[in-house]
């Protein structure tokens, strides 16, 4: 049997830019910021130093029933919305339940449920704690709920690697198909960490932008004026499918999911290793595993969160991985518009990378008025970049607290 190839046949998302991946991509191409002001009552009560976030564009009640909303943490609600949309986009393929898998990553899991129920316990007593508190707050709650909604029985998995979770879950889905465990896997990431404790915690580590006078300009990766990331929320999911399976049913194929490379820094719990050895190893490994060379990569969707240290570390790691070939790899920094979706970030940017290859268009970042001279990359600003005709491949980077490095390679079909 020849090696099983994995292709992308469906995309779904709910993001700060829209309730669908189509609206989200349209927002990206229009250069729209997803930043919105935070609830004034919450700001007053907790005196949070950050007054905005890239919150969801959609109210989940537009799509889900009242009972679904009661019984699922918001992170699981988002995941279910994205997963159902992705399967619909794939043409609702008929597949045996035992051959349909799920892999949904998250950075933080059911933090709203945990803390709401903790409030209930403290303020109202044990009888008022919701009986579904534990199954709603556990990190695998999204994978479990998505598997139930889709009737997916090949296995439902959850990767947890902070802001690399979403990308890593796609790698899990890819491995499931390559290894013969499934023919289709619904894979992605979800996050709803817009709880005051998360703003407080990230603020205390000086990770968030405090550009309160201009939220739309706050997420500015690679710009000299960047002062931290903008917290985002949402979910993004892709339908990964074994190539022959997709071909046999005449599915639309967006791109090939060609490989994943992973490494760990083993250096510091939050700071990137300054030489970028681990990150560059993940990138090179991804390219090699796809049987490609640096010359084949025509585009990178960078992790680029808009933090002073992280952006330069990534730029150095990219240069270290590919040398002069980087000059021919225009880089997108889409967090300038979406904010940082944490455990969903790698998934959403994975979708963007697929769309960039599919449409041969790499989107321009917004807010880069003054490119940091320490960033030796061809960062796309102003005009979107048209990618070459013929066989092309693109790379998506995701990194997470804990020293997790994940790189995905997507190829044209």
């Amino acid at each position, binding site marked *: 049997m020849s090696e099983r190839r994995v292709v992308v046949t469906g995309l779904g998302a709910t993001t700060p830019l829209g309730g669908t991946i189509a609206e989200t991509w349209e927002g990206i191409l229009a250069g729209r910021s997803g930043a919105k002001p935070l609830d004034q009552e919450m700001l007053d009560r907790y005196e949070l130093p950050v007054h905005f976030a890239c919150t969801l564009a959609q109210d989940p009640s537009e799509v889900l*029933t*009242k*009972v679904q909303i*009661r019984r699922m943490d918001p992170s699981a609600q988002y995941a279910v919305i994205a997963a159902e949309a992705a399967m619909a986009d794939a043409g609702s393929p008929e597949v045996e339940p035992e051959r349909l898998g799920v892999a949904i990553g998250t950075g933080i899991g059911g933090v709203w449920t945990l803390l709401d129920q903790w409030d209930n316990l403290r303020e109202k007593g044990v*009888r*008022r704690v*919701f*009986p*579904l508190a534990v199954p709603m707050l556990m990190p695998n709650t999204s994978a479990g709920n998505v598997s139930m909604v889709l009737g997916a029985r090949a296995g439902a998995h959850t990767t947890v690697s902070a802001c690399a979770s979403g990308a890593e879950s796609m790698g899990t889905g890819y491995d499931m198909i390559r290894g013969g465990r499934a023919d289709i896997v619904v894979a992605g990431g979800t996050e709803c960490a817009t709880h005051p404790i998360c703003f407080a915690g990230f603020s205390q580590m000086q990770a968030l932008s405090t550009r309160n006078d201009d939220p739309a300009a706050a997420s500015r990766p690679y710009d000299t004026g960047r002062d931290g990331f903008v917290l985002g929320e949402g979910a993004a999911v892709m339908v990964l499918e074994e190539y022959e399976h997709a071909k046999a049913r005449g599915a639309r194929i967006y791109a090939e999911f060609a490989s994943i490379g992973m490494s760990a820094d083993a250096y510091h719990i939050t700071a990137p290793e300054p030489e970028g050895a681990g990150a560059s190893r993940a990138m090179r490994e991804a390219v090699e595993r796809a049987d490609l060379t640096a010359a084949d990569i025509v585009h990178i969707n960078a992790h680029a969160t808009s933090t002073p240290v992280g952006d330069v570390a990534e730029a150095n790691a990219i240069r270290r991985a590919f040398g002069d070939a980087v000059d021919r790899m225009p880089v997108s920094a889409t967090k300038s518009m979406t904010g940082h979706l944490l455990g969903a970030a790698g998934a959403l940017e994975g979708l963007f990378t697929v769309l960039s290859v599919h449409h041969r268009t790499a989107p321009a970042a917004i807010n880069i008025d003054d490119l940091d001279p320490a960033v030796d990359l061809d960062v796309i600003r102003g005009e979107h970049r048209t990618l070459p005709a013929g066989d092309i491949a693109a790379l998506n980077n995701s990194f997470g607290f804990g020293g997790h490095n994940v790189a995905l390679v997507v190829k044209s079909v």
Partner: protein
Amino acid sequence: MADQQEILSGLAEIVNEETGLDPAEVQMDKSFTDDLDIDSLSMMTIVVNAEEKFGVRIPDDEVKNLTTVGDAVTFIQNNQG
């Protein structure tokens, strides 16, 4: 004090909120598990919400005796404080 009809409709609202079932389905002779397909976790939430709504205490030991909607309505009616 709520009368039987008020308790039934209040309970139907609680069941609807928890499960999405049409309140009209919640009738005296219906079994929570066999007819309404309510699992033990949902039952727990329904009990706690009913306690709050009707000002009664429904001990955990008692919950297993509440097989039908009518059992619950009667228990609430007899134990309203």
